[in-house]
């Protein structure tokens, strides 16, 4: 069989060659790669290969920073990037971020973060949060509530601006983002960055479990996350992971509920497209496809 050549090279008819060439020339819109990177939590760092370099360098804190950055990138907003990068930059002189916030996506903190600096930063930098809105916490699998239920404009703004996932108001104010989703109990005293990293680790734990096929473990991690951080800053991410884990376990109704809630509360989140697909797939099948025989799960 190895002697078979492409039909083009074996004298395919001109009409066939034209069809093949047209198909080969078709390219997706460039935004697709970036969007997928973001949905996977890989961010712009991965798109430029920076995360690979960081991973091969493999300092533990570098990876933590990569994860933090990746989650921040999920929200795809400059605000979120500035928040994280700002938190790191403050420690190194509080002046590096300013004009560089736009470049932050291309040069993530993983490249500069020092392992030994992490806790020092966490201890030293606790920006004040000014009057953050509080999102009501409901059971993750409960039927989706209309967004209108969050009639408070400030709350609604925060919901529609998922950059609120990372709540460091100083940086958020820098780019004009609304104050962020922080528990009321943290309003008076600034949120600890160690708390932020704890949240990141909790979410990463769920993501890692799911990645390794342990949906039950992922759900348990998400339950712990919800219990530990009742007004967590990564609720959209948690909802998304719950949706995927439930689908992985074959609980289509639960996955659909999580997807609907994510869509209702965070319609602009990068995971919205995937959530819409889950909602659509869990609806009754409309037209049978001739591709049905190929529907077997990939190995």
């Amino acid at each position, binding site marked *: 069989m190895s002697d078979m050549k492409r039909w083009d090279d074996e004298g395919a008819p001109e009409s066939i060659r034209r069809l093949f060439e047209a198909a080969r020339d078709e390219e997706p819109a460039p935004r697709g790669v970036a969007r997928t990177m973001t949905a996977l939590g890989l961010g712009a760092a991965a798109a430029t290969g920076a995360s690979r370099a960081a991973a091969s360098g493999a300092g*533990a804190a570098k990876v*933590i920073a990569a994860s933090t950055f990746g989650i921040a990138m999920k929200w795809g907003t400059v605000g979120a990037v500035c928040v994280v990068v700002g938190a790191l930059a403050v420690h190194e002189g509080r002046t590096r971020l300013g004009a560089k916030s736009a470049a932050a996506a291309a040069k993530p903190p993983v490249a500069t973060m020092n392992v*030994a600096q992490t806790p020092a930063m966490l201890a030293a930098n606790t920006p004040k949060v000014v009057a953050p809105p509080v999102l009501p916490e409901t059971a993750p699998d409960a039927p989706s509530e209309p967004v209108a239920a969050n009639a408070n404009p400030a709350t609604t703004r925060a919901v529609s601006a998922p950059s609120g996932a990372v709540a460091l108001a100083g940086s958020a104010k820098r780019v004009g983002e609304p104050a962020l989703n922080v528990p009321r109990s943290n309003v008076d005293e600034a949120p600890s960055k160690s708390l932020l990293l704890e949240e990141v680790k909790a979410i990463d734990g769920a993501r890692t479990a799911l990645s390794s096929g342990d949906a039950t473990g992922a759900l348990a991690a998400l339950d712990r996350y919800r219990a530990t951080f009742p007004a967590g800053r990564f609720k959209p991410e948690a909802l998304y992971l719950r949706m995927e884990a439930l689908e992985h376990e074959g609980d289509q109704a639960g996955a659909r509920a999580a997807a609907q809630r994510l869509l209702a509360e965070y319609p602009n989140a990068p995971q919205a497209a995937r959530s819409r697909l889950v909602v659509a797939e869990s609806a009754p099948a409309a037209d049978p496809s001739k591709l049905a025989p190929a529907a077997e799960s990939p190995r």
Partner: protein
Amino acid sequence: MSATSAVSLPDPERRALSRAGDRDARLSELVRDQYAFVWRILRRFGLSPTDADDGAQQVFLVVSRRLSDVDPGSERAFLFRTAMHVASKAHRTRRRRPEDAGDVCDQNEADAPSTDELVDQRRARELLDRVLDEMDVDLRAVIVLFEIEGLTMSEIADALDVPPGTVASRLRRARADLEARVLRHQAKTVAGGLRS
């Protein structure tokens, strides 16, 4: 607290985080290098450009969950199988969305000002997709993978989970089938033109 003594992650956690970094790096590379491949597969299996965007994202989400199952060197085979699965589900659950209307408009823009080449390419793709849609899915797969995407025979055998000889025989049948269908469509077009 001194800066150097600040971090004291246990070794297992360090190793886990390092593995997570390696995993992300591999996943990133796959997205960068194979996104267009996955997207075109979805297009050739009947998804609109917009649906192919969403479908490609879903393919890589599946890959991210099952990356440890993907043997190095078999990435495109896994991606193809996953793309087939996603395309199949998309066909079953397809809903017309506003974006889809845009896709249709794009396809019908042949009357709008455009270069002849672009119009020709679009028409060629429409004809190809129409013909592929009529073909048996097994034959369609080998045409797409071998003639359009340039996979090797062994890669295709891996992707389709069939013996290599089967790939070759399917390819021969697929070529004959495709050519006959293209001729038939062209004949219809000519006949339609004569009638009008």
